[in-house]
């Protein structure tokens, strides 16, 4: 194709003396600049700039052409953190008349800057022989070439509208065809008003088709406009009447015998226009709701026939690199309304915003094409990673069933990242300059604990906490101790009784001390003191000055039934100890003291048993 670039590119940054501001460019190009009247010109307007969202171009008035929007496409790139995108808008231009046509500058305003293209000149030549022509061209053609003998019952011009199906599912394409027929010359461009399509989304299907046809023996020139309709709701929806307003030449017969013949003769051929308003019949379409059976949670409303593919722009990368995942939905249906399929969980990747680009092919009266969703994935970890299968659910009207399209998993070999490398560094987000040290490249849970890590102390404390009944024991021990202590205290409140209770113990202690004495006199003195104090404590009398006689009297007062044998033993021991205290020391005094100690212990035990505690 002899494609001629006629575009102009104006950067706003140039006007600012090379400042670093974002620059947007716009270009316009046509596939040919010489075109026949019955042919068409493809106009492509391209807008590029460092942003993900760019405005649409503003087309100027094009009086020399009929303009139809045919396609748009979008591309997006994300390299080293820089976003750039390019949008293409394609139009089909049908010339109105032969001669020199002009496409005026197409302008675009972005961030206060206005950029525009240069005007494009198109030379329109007359229609070629045998080709379809516009109504005006047909009217100018020799009558013998298009005119046929007219059937009297056929109208001179009329409009029809029809759809390819009267019953459709929600969001299933319905093809509306509006045809304007004329068998007479038109005095100007007919004014077409599209029918109302409330309840439908519409998609124009250019280009307009023209031609000739013989109906009921009469030769008609026709123009045909096709529109794809997508019902948005269930129920009986009405497509309104399509209307065409056209001016035709009034057919006035000359009567040579009338009084006004001369005036009529000379006026013939001048403006005798007659305006005709033509309307098609409204059409009712019965729209069925999508069946509930088989509808999945992932179904987002897509109706038609689609296929799903995905790919990555590379098969290997490093941790932190950007990998572009392209998911393409291709097929027939309302592609513009298709949302991005949900990404499956990918914990090994960070994912960034999805950008979609739609490419439509409207040939054959069917809206088809593809929609590409691009997602930037950044591996968090190294290793052999896998991008899980993608799925896309849609309803196929021909099968009257929901269908799931599925892709295969994609393997990706990821090498460890380089600190401070060119990839995306999350740790440096917002930082003025990269700092040396660690850069976070992934977030994941920590690894398994490969050994039981419960310490003996932990186990002991846990067991202690679990032994609830056993824990009563220290309370019982403490309570018993406290109780016995209190009991002792209460008992010791009476000094006489306390003295009586402690008498034997104190006496035995003195006897024990006596046995440690080397001198027999001292031992005898201690034992005599032990006996004296024992009796004084028991009888509650002073120990000082206690005589044997008084001790026996007090004993008999305390215990009237005191055995005589016990009294005799007491007398004997008392006197022996007195004798030992004052006897001259012998060579084996210690041994003699030992025998007396045993006698004294026996006496004390017998007395304590008789007197009581």
């Amino acid at each position, binding site marked *: 194709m002899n494609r001629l670039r006629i575009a102009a590119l104006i950067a706003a940054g140039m006007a600012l003396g090379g400042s670093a501001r974002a620059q947007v460019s716009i270009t316009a190009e046509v596939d040919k600049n010489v075109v026949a009247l019955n042919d068409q010109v493809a106009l492509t307007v391209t807008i590029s700039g460092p942003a993900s969202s760019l405005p649409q171009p503003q087309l100027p008035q094009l009086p020399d052409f009929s303009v139809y929007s045919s396609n748009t496409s979008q591309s997006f790139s994300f390299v080293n953190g820089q976003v750039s995108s390019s949008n293409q808008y394609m139009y089909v231009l049908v010339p109105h008349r032969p001669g020199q046509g002009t496409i005026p500058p197409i302008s675009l305003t972005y961030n206060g800057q206005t950029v525009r293209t240069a005007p494009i000149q198109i030379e329109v030549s007359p229609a070629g022989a045998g080709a379809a022509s516009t109504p005006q061209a047909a009217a100018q053609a020799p009558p013998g070439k298009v005119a046929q003998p007219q059937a009297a019952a056929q109208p001179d011009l009329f409009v029809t509208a029809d759809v390819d199906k009267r019953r459709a599912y929600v969001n299933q394409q319905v093809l509306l065809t509006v045809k304007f027929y004329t068998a007479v010359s038109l005095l100007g461009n007919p004014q077409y008003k599209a029918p109302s399509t409330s309840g439908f989304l519409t998609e124009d299907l250019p280009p307009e088709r023209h031609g000739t046809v013989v109906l009921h023996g009469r030769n008609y020139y026709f123009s045909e406009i096709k529109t794809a309709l997508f019902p948005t709701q269930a129920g009986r929806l009405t497509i309104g009447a399509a209307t065409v307003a056209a001016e035709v030449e009034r057919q006035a017969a000359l009567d040579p015998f009338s009084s006004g013949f001369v005036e009529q003769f000379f006026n013939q051929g001048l403006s005798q226009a007659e305006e005709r308003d033509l309307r098609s019949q409204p059409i009712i379409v019965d729209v069925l709701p999508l069946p509930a059976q088989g509808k999945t949670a992932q179904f987002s409303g897509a109706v038609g026939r689609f296929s799903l593919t995905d790919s990555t722009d590379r098969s290997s990368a490093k941790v932190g690199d950007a990998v572009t995942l392209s998911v393409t939905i291709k097929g027939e249906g309302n592609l513009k309304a298709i949302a991005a399929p949900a990404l499956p969980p990918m914990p090994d990747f960070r994912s960034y915003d999805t950008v979609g680009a739609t490419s439509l092919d409207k040939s054959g009266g069917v809206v088809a094409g593809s929609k590409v969703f691009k997602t930037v994935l950044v591996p968090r970890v190294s290793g052999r990673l896998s991008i899980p299968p993608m799925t896309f659910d849609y309803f196929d009207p021909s099968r009257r069933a929901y269908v799931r399209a599925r892709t295969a998993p994609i393997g990706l070999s990821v090498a460890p990242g380089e600190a401070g490398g060119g990839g995306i560094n999350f740790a440096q987000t917002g930082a003025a300059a990269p700092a040396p040290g660690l850069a976070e490249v992934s977030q994941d849970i920590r690894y398994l604990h490969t050994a*039981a890590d419960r310490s003996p102390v932990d186990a002991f404390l846990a067991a*202690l906490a679990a032994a609830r009944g056993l824990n009563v024991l220290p309370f019982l021990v403490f309570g*018993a101790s406290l109780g016995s202590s209190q009991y002792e205290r209460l008992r010791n409140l009476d000094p006489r009784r306390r003295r009586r209770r402690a008498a034997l113990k104190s006496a035995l202690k003195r006897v024990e001390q006596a046995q440690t004495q080397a001198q027999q006199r001292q031992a005898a003195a201690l034992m005599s003191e032990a006996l004296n104090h024992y009796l004084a404590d028991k009888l509650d009398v002073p120990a000082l000055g206690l005589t044997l006689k008084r001790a026996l009297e007090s004993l008999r007062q305390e215990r009237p039934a005191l055995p005589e044998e016990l009294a005799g033993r007491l007398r004997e021991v008392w006197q022996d100890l007195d004798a030992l205290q004052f006897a001259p020391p012998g060579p084996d005094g210690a041994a003699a003291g030992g025998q007396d100690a045993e006698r004294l212990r026996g006496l004390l035990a017998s007395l304590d048993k008789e007197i009581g505690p």
Partner: protein
Amino acid sequence: MSVLILLLSLSCAARAQAPQAIADAQKKYDAGDFAGAAAVLGPAAKAAPGDAALQYDLGNALLKAGRLGPAIASYQRAFDLRPRDADIRYNLNFALKQAGEELVPSGVPPLVFKLFYFLSERELAGLQWLGAWAALLLGAVYVRKASWRPALRPWALAALGLWVCAAAWWGTRLATWPSNLAVIVKGPADVRSGPGENFGVSFTAPEGRRVQILTDGGAWLEIGVLKEGVRGWLPASDVERVADAQ
């Protein structure tokens, strides 16, 4: 004391199976068979509910297998057993973030949280009982033996201090954290205004969100969401109790 020894021996017997289960699960985990690893660790963790490593590993396997709710329940059990373990804290916080929560509540300094949760409730209870044993036994001797009192006094006071501090810490923990904790395992769960489907849905709660069971109505539970402080009813099958395995 014999009861204490018996409890210790039972605990050790259950833990004897843990190393083998961990080894088996590790092979599957390393091979990417996370569901298989969870299947091995699940029964082992149930048999040894006091083993923090098993609960932690089970949480890892469940999280990798895509089961966020049960993973958080396992991590929470591991945290309850060994709250000072850095890995357990990290992974629990990692999982909680996916459920819209964080381990350290907003407004609480991390250091304070770390200190407050340095010991587990079980350890605090054990420490409290250890202090009680020591203080009471020393007290019993102190009361009976007047002559030993000067030597016993510092030890008895130290034991009493341990008892009081551990009991206060333990009591504060019990008062500030619900014992009947559960985790939503089916998300988003419809939380209704009453115990049945004839009551309207008040709100939905995401999987993994920690809740407190307020009323156990059998098939339906009244729960309170810890973070937002709202309450409602949901089917008992939608939650997993954290304390079940212990």
